[in-house]
């Protein structure tokens, strides 16, 4: 990870700042955060790895008597990876991400660029409208959209039915994209705002120069603004990838409405159900560790890919 920060100040404080006991002061400032970070990131991860290596040993008639813990080696991992439903859940969120993230970012970028060419007052109102859903928690958004998806209850399905369409938003082939719609609805405006902010940081002289060169609004948008908005796109991309892997609340809320959302629809849902519905916290721990690994590989991978390309472009 790298930052295109202003380097002007970074060297100055580092070089000249030699207080009497810098180590002590620095660690004083860091300690509260680091302590909590250890407690909420490092320790749980370690504990999950530990739990994932255990399994219960049964006793009593039919195994219903008292049980103790035994060492399982990598059995839980093998078990998790043998479960086709768990593997499918990864495939599902990958497919989801491959479609949902580009569509959302395309929409966000288009909205941002379009707003950037509009006059101030309108842009402000529209921007607020687009951004509003970000303030609606994911579960609430899912409850709302759930009502709009269920046939017989949804006014949208009603209206479409009147013109001869009968969309089945909760059908087997559609429900994943209905969930994608909820996620896009929640975050498109937010991502748009990130891009707008990036565009605002671009010196106006650039646009002026382009205009004098005779570039049309469209050309300015695509040739100048879009490349300059790149850092914002990378950022929103990374967070979208992380968000996709965490997909949980939306399918959980939609699930009671349809038989097409399974109990292991996403990796998170699978681990949750394994832990609390099926009560196998050891297997659930293994699934959590696998998910954390995959997530790290994907987000680091995306970053290194983008940055490698950036370096190549710079060359």
């Amino acid at each position, binding site marked *: 990870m790298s930052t295109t920060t*202003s380097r002007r100040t970074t060297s100055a404080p580092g070089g000249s700042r030699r207080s009497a006991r810098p*180590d002590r002061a620095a660690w004083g*400032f860091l300690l*509260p*955060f680091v302590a909590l970070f250890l407690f909420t990131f490092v320790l749980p991860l370690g504990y999950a790895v530990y739990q994932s290596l255990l399994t219960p040993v049964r006793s009593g008639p039919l195994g219903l008597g008292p049980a103790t813990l035994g060492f399982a080696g990598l059995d839980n991992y093998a078990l998790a990876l043998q479960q086709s439903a768990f593997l499918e859940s990864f495939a599902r969120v990958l497919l989801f991400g491959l479609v949902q993230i580009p569509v959302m970012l395309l929409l966000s970028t288009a909205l941002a660029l379009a707003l950037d060419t509009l006059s101030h007052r309108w842009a402000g109102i529209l921007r607020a409208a*687009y951004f509003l859903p970000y303030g609606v928690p994911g579960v*609430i958004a899912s409850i709302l959209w759930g009502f709009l998806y269920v046939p017989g209850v949804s006014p949208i399905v009603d209206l479409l039915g009147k013109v001869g369409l009968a969309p089945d938003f909760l059908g087997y082939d559609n429900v994943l994209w209905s969930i994608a719609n909820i996620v896009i609805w929640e975050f498109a405006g937010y991502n748009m705002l990130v891009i707008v902010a990036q565009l605002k940081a671009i010196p106006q002289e650039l646009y002026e120069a382009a205009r004098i060169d005779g570039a049309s609004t469209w050309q300015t948008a695509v040739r100048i603004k879009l490349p300059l908005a790149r850092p914002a796109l990378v*950022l929103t991309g990374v967070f979208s990838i992380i968000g996709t892997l965490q997909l949980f609340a939306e399918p959980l809320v939609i699930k009671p409405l349809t038989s097409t959302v399974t109990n292991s629809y996403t990796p*998170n849902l699978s681990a949750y159900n394994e832990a609390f519905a099926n009560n196998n916290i050891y297997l659930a721990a293994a699934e959590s560790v696998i998910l954390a690994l995959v997530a790290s590989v994907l987000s680091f991978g995306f970053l290194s890919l983008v940055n490698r390309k950036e370096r190549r472009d710079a060359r």
Partner: protein
Amino acid sequence: MSVSTPPAEKPVPAASAHTSQTAGTRRDGRPRRGVKPSRILLVALLTIAALYFLLPVYWLVVASTKSSAGLFGTFGLWFSDPQWLDNLSKVFSYSDGIFWSWTFNSVLYAGVGGALATLLAGAAGYALAVYRFRGREAVFKAVLAGVLLPSTTLALPMYLLFSKAGLANTYWAVLIPSMVSPFGVYLCRIYAEAAVPAEMLEAARVDGAGEWRIFGTLVLRTMTPALVTVFLFQFVGIWNNYFLPLVMLSDDRKYPITLGLTTWQTAADRTPELYQLTVGGAFLSILPLAAAMLVLQRYWRSGLTQGSVKG
């Protein structure tokens, strides 16, 4: 990750000063021309987009005025026999006013968690930015890894650990994880590097101020824009969070609104009036944040260049 900083919004003044000299251009620096068809198309598309984003919210407003029977029996996009006050008062009075508890809890988790997370992130980011000390790189790498690790993958292991420690199903179970924001540290470090001048610190030290005093007075003030941003992100992140409280809490008096409302929703098939309460509660719950969104947009935009946090 490439992030451009400093984040301070560079608003229009430069441009408007420039454009005021140019006849025939508008304040935003774009030429004023006759209304072109392409422009009408653009406005039309943007309006359709606005309808898309506002439709579910509009539906919610309409639905919150209906009875449970009306919710299923009447057309969803128009009012029918509105009984708004009656509905909303039921939301607040149901089950000994549990909705009040949920609201209070949400404010507590998001407010206190967000504030403490901001303070800790500010201190840590500042330390990483201005001091050279052993272990600095290691800490920063750990922070970056924390940014890239989806937080929900940790919720389950954290629950197991908190259970052992006797912390599960306490306010702390939600508050403690909410106080940690690696991304906030990352932002604060970048901002402090750019915005805290070494000369200022030196001058303060010459005046005999201790490190903590410098931080508490000068630095916090200088870093205010970044801190506000971090607070807002963290606040919304906690407010919208669902997985962590779902896993950690079993006593419904400790639930935040998100968890409480889904409880109502899932219990509605046995207690039909809960359908209406869920809708009414959802309506009430988005009011404060929607208002905050609109009012605080400026801050968002100024801070957003630095990145984002997803719940």
